[in-house]
């Protein structure tokens, strides 16, 4: 037994007596052979196991299955010569044999497709309703915190401001700086063809201040913070900490959601402003190196050519994006069930949903400002 050898099964078919003699091993390793042999052999009314050395549950299950199937066709198959262990195994397996229930009816493909689409649409609508409800809860608790400042946790707010805002400064600044560099570089190559290099300043200023600064900051924050919110709240939900809070008379919305979303609401405009400055700096640097537009000239051109409206249009979007990211993240955290798999799934869902929602909101803002003519 020490060296692994291939298990062998030998089957002799005595067609005159209708006997099938098995010797060797009838186990999970050889049962497929036995099945093929049975398909070819007809009219068997006795299976002889006298020389069978080993029988396992797979083999026993197979033998009983053969017996049951032939019985259903009005033929009796006798299993004989089994050793005591094999007999007791056959008995055990027979008593445990599951009684299969009817297979569930599968619907045709088109129906399933229709059903799934319907479910997805309904799910999407319900998700939006749930998010709106969540926003309502947040606003209600925020108003309550204003009326009863004692219930509000300032320490928690400061902690989250640091997590969400301060810690995000390096990555946001670097990202915006690089965007400025890229814009200046791409813009200059195109504008040089028309001899209009100096308009690169307007290009950088308008695109960074109006759109890219805040949008890309929001996307980075959505990836960084929405996932962190979901993971933190979700793991608390998983370990029943949220339920523990409720039984202790603490309101999870007040303790967990308000400080987080409020911190995001305060910090995102600041991060957006940092991104704006850093983007302009990157653009100015590249314009100087690549086009020879001196920093003074860049500044003069920036002040004269770009209205402060652009900054306002950019930054006014920040609180809305912050609300979206915060609400999506916290809501996803509360959807986590008691298994680790759902935590991972909800975290990645939160990031995708937050980024998507931010971009949709940005598009709506664009249309809104365009129709107002700002």
């Amino acid at each position, binding site marked *: *037994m*020490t060296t*692994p050898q291939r298990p062998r099964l030998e089957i002799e078919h005595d067609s005159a007596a209708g006997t099938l003699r098995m010797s060797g091993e009838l*186990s*999970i*390793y050889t*049962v*497929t052979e036995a*099945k093929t042999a049975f398909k070819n052999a007809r009219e068997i009314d006795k299976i002889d196991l006298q020389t069978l050395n*080993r029988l*396992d*549950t*797979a083999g026993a*299950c*197979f033998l009983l*299955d053969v017996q049951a199937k032939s019985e259903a066709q009005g033929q009796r198959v006798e299993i004989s010569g089994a*050793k005591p*262990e094999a007999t*007791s*195994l056959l008995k*055990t*397996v027979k008593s*445990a*044999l*599951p*009684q*299969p*229930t009817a297979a569930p009816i599968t619907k045709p493909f088109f129906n399933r497709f229709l059903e799934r689409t319907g479910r997805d649409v309904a799910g999407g609508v319900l998700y939006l309703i749930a998010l709106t409800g969540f926003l309502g809860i947040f606003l209600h608790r925020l108003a309550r915190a204003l009326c009863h400042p004692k219930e509000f946790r300032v320490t928690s707010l400061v902690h989250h401001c640091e997590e969400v805002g301060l810690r995000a400064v390096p990555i946001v600044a670097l990202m915006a700086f690089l965007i400025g560099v890229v814009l200046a570089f791409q813009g200059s190559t195109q504008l040089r063809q028309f001899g209009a290099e100096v308009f690169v300043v307007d290009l950088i200023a308008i695109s960074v201040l109006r759109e890219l600064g805040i949008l890309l900051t929001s996307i980075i924050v959505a990836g960084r913070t929405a996932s962190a919110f979901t993971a933190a709240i979700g793991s608390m939900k998983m370990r029943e900490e949220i339920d523990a809070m409720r039984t202790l008379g603490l309101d999870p919305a007040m303790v967990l959601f308000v400080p987080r979303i409020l911190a995001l609401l305060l910090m995102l405009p600041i991060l957006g402003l940092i991104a704006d400055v850093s983007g302009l700096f990157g653009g100015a640097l590249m314009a100087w190196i690549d086009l020879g537009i001196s920093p003074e000239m860049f500044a003069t051109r920036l002040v004269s050519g770009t209205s402060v409206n652009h900054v306002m249009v950019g930054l006014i979007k920040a609180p809305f994006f912050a609300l979206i990211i915060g609400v999506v993240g916290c809501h996803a955290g509360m959807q986590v*069930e008691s*298994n680790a*798999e*759902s935590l991972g799934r909800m975290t990645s869902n939160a990031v995708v949903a937050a980024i998507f929602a931010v971009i949709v909101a940005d598009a709506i803002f664009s249309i809104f400002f365009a129709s107002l003519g700002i």
Partner: protein
Amino acid sequence: MSDKVANDVIISVRNLRNQFGSHIVHDELDLDVRRGEIIGVVGGSGTGKSVLLRSIVGLQKPTGGTVNVLGIDVLNANEDTRAALEARWGVMFQDGALFSSLTVRENVEVPMLAVKGLDPDIRRQVADLKIAMVGLPYNAGDKYPSELSGGMRKRAGLARALALDPEIVFLDEPTAGLDPIGASAFDALIVELSRSLGLTVFLVTHDLDTLHATCDRIAVLAERKVLVTGTMQEMLDVDHPWVHEYFHGPRARAASDGKQNTKNKSGGENGN
């Protein structure tokens, strides 16, 4: 298998040493497990019961010593030998450790996928049989592990461990976290399966009722080694302080009383 002598040793651990940093868990640990028996490993928290189990099945590389299972040196076997050996034992982890992305039936089929050329219908049938054998309802096969209760997950884990009709099953805390009714049902299941399939069972437990109800022999881990092995009766006579406390404490007394009561009751019924 039947021609082997009743007490041939199929797991033998010699001089096992496990060390994590400066913390020595096992030192000069010896243990023998005989074919067909149910052995229970007990010990206080942190005495390395699970580490011992993991060392035997090769999940944890010991610092020193030898582990011999079914005549194969586990620690120095090559990959093919190990793979062949792994088909001859099954492990049930504490919470079942089922693959969460697969249904229970697919979980039970996983070990059988390694059998070359196995007919898919037979595979499915055998998986259903194993699910039924561990006492799960027929429709449990289509469920995902997250939809099952803790006790059902353990049963499903056992079904997966039994998929290839192993000679040895290792059970890590089989009754932890089960209600008393579920726990005694699981105890009965272990005994029944071990008898009917000729299994050798190595179980790590804290549960005194399980020890009373199932184990042929008990091994006590203390002072970094297997302090004593023997039947329940022999354990009661050991005068090591921890062992004495363990087997004579209030919970132990309750468990042994429970055992006595059931014996008397069944004896009475037989008499009538």
